[in-house]
């Protein structure tokens, strides 16, 4: 996949998602291609074209990547064991956002959560000036909760579960 081609000191991260209630996610190869692929999901504020994407207004972009999973075994009489990396899952991203019943992106997320089987392409864009480095992945939405407790602003919490092996890096240069 295309590696990030530069360091972006002081970048800001934003999160983008495909629109449409029945999206066709990018293929694995296209997740690593900025031109005409990832750029269509990323909006102009992050140097994309945004024709088929919208921003997901989240409190913070959570950690993403790969979980840890190891097997270990011991030999009688030996104190130490190797940890053997085994098939691990992509990290699930639990996200909190201000709940706005009119926000088109949150409504799509809610619909995905009700369905559970809608694959959608998401993009985390790191932007500094005119430079963007994008991490694109396909995912489904699991949890979706609305917390409307009267003592605070209503918020929603949802969890995005990336599909295994379906991710790619790209950049806009």
């Amino acid at each position, binding site marked *: 996949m295309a590696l990030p081609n530069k360091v972006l000191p002081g970048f800001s991260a934003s999160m983008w998602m495909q629109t449409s209630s029945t999206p066709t996610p990018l293929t*694995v*190869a296209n997740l690593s291609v900025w031109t005409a692929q990832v750029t269509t999901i990323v909006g102009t504020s992050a140097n994309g074209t945004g024709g088929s994407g919208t921003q997901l207004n989240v409190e913070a972009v959570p950690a993403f990547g790969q979980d840890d999973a190891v097997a270990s075994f011991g030999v009688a009489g030996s104190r130490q064991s190797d940890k053997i990396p085994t098939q691990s899952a992509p990290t699930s991203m639990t996200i909190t956002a201000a709940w706005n019943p009119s926000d088109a992106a949150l409504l799509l997320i809610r619909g995905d959560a009700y369905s559970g089987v809608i694959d959608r392409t998401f993009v985390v864009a790191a932007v500094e000036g005119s430079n963007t480095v994008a991490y694109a992945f396909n995912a489904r939405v699991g949890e979706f909760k609305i917390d409307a407790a009267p003592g605070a602003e209503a918020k929603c919490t949802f969890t995005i579960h990336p*599909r295994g092996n379906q991710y790619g890096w790209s950049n806009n240069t």
Partner: protein
Amino acid sequence: MTLDEAVEILSTTYQPLDLIARGLVVDPTEVSEALANAEEDTVEKFVLTILAKYNPQEITNGNNTEQQRPAEFSNQSVE
């Protein structure tokens, strides 16, 4: 399998690309030439790079035959 078929398969799959590419046997010379002519930041270029990893071009240098891979894979071994 033709190169076009292999590129089509890799471009449209949702499966792990390295896993699929291992099973796609194509002409290494054809891959090398296509890679040299491919445009940057296109899906063709991206999948051709993966195909070249598993279909390295052989170079006959006197009595020695070497396998040439794209520079980005020069320090990796084919699994």
